[in-house]
């Protein structure tokens, strides 16, 4: 396989997240009733970063939580047992809030399908939106993102890797 090619460096990632933060605010007309939920693993630090940006633009804190969809996956039986992670919903809950799901890569859409099921068990948001750092295509379900850092045309066999400082000690997105 070819050497990994960097498609986003740390500057690109920072700019993409800043733009996404502004888009979320613009679409929501401010930070009121906003809840950002990061999907494990790398959606969680992304949601925190977007939360910090929104807080610095609007001057008010925004609720950030984390959502684990392991138990809701449709491929549990097809693999060895997966590790679960923590789900942490901000104190105000998600009822009647605008929930923005945050993930690193949007691919088949199956993770997001699982996340929507998980949300339904946790409450009833007034709206659910999706923000991703990279959309690489190849959807298998009728799901699309509202906010995209970068559209990355890719072959199904290619491997898109997102590394984030909080987890991997550096920020970059590569394709190989």
């Amino acid at each position, binding site marked *: 396989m070819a050497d990994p090619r960097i498609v986003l460096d740390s500057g690109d990632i920072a700019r993409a997240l800043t733009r996404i933060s502004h888009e979320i605010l613009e679409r929501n007309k401010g930070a009121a009733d906003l809840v950002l939920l990061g999907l494990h693993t790398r959606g969680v630090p992304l949601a925190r970063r977007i939360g910090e940006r929104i807080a610095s633009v609007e001057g008010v804190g925004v609720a950030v939580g984390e959502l*684990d969809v*392991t*138990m*809701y996956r449709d491929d*549990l*039986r*097809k*693999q*060895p*047992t*997966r*590790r*679960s*992670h*923590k*789900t*942490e919903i901000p104190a105000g809950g998600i009822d009647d809030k605008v929930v923005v799901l945050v993930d690193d890569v949007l691919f088949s859409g199956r993770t997001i399908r699982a996340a929507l*099921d998980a949300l339904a*068990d*946790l*409450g009833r948001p007034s709206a659910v939106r999706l923000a991703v750092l990279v959309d690489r295509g190849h959807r298998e379900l009728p799901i699309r993102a509202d906010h995209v850092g970068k559209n990355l045309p890719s072959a199904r066999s290619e491997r898109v890797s997102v590394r984030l400082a909080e987890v991997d000690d550096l920020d970059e997105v590569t394709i190989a």
Partner: protein
Amino acid sequence: MRHLLSIDDLSVDAIAEIFETAADMHDVQRREVKKLPALRGRTVINMFFEDSTRTRSSFEIAGKWLSADVINISAKGSSASKGESLRDTVLTVCAMGVDGLVIRHPASGAAQQVSQWVDAVVVNAGDGMHEHPTQALLDAYTLQRRLGSLEGRHVVLVGDLTHSRVFRSNVLCLTKLGARVTVVAPPTLMPAGIAAWSAAAGFETSYDLDAVLPHADAVMMLRVQRERMSGGYFPSAREYTVGYGLTRDRLATLKPDAPICHPGPMNRGLEIAADAADAAQSVVLEQVSSGLAVRMSVLYHLLAGEES
């Protein structure tokens, strides 16, 4: 991990993984909708050939919250009471297409035996005087939540060690997790051959609760089974309490932050005084809610993934 028959089947890493998932499951108990779809379409049978309230209902709720279909069969009212052998009962049930079998049986080794007869995943929910692995896991999980790592912590187990499967599983589990374990019992209730076992496994034994208690980081009181009282193991219930009960006076010698565990059902006034059972440092009810989380985790790890 194919079945859960004994704590011996589990590596330290496997235990850590079960505890991690249990912590995630714990949060589900606080939700309004207590349901995860992980075991949708899987069928779990609870086969209890011995009376049980908490273990059976704990496994039942654990399975249901994970969306498995759960059926309870007890010895009374089943064909076992008509003389059917364990093997025939189990094979009959499994012929219906069961994925998991949670079994409690008065014979030591029953779960192990059953696991060789069937394709289903088998969880030992207590076999005779042998083991009760999920109880040991939930006890260790509860203590870890209170104390942090159990490495080097001193856990004292008190009670009828000879007949106790909870004791056996707990010693295996706690020593595996690095705890320093002391077991205390009257000489008549100390299992035969414990000297060799304790030397090999690295735990201590004592007949003197008062000497051990002040140094304990946690204390686990085991139930004195009523049926033992006429067995000549100790002169009277009162005598047992004087020597080995966690009385109000002994409670005062215990470190104030040392958790008090009891697997239940408690004989208040016999092995544990009401003051100790209801003390702020008692974790008896926490053990019940932890038990549910640990059993959810065990069922998830055994039944959710691809078939091995």
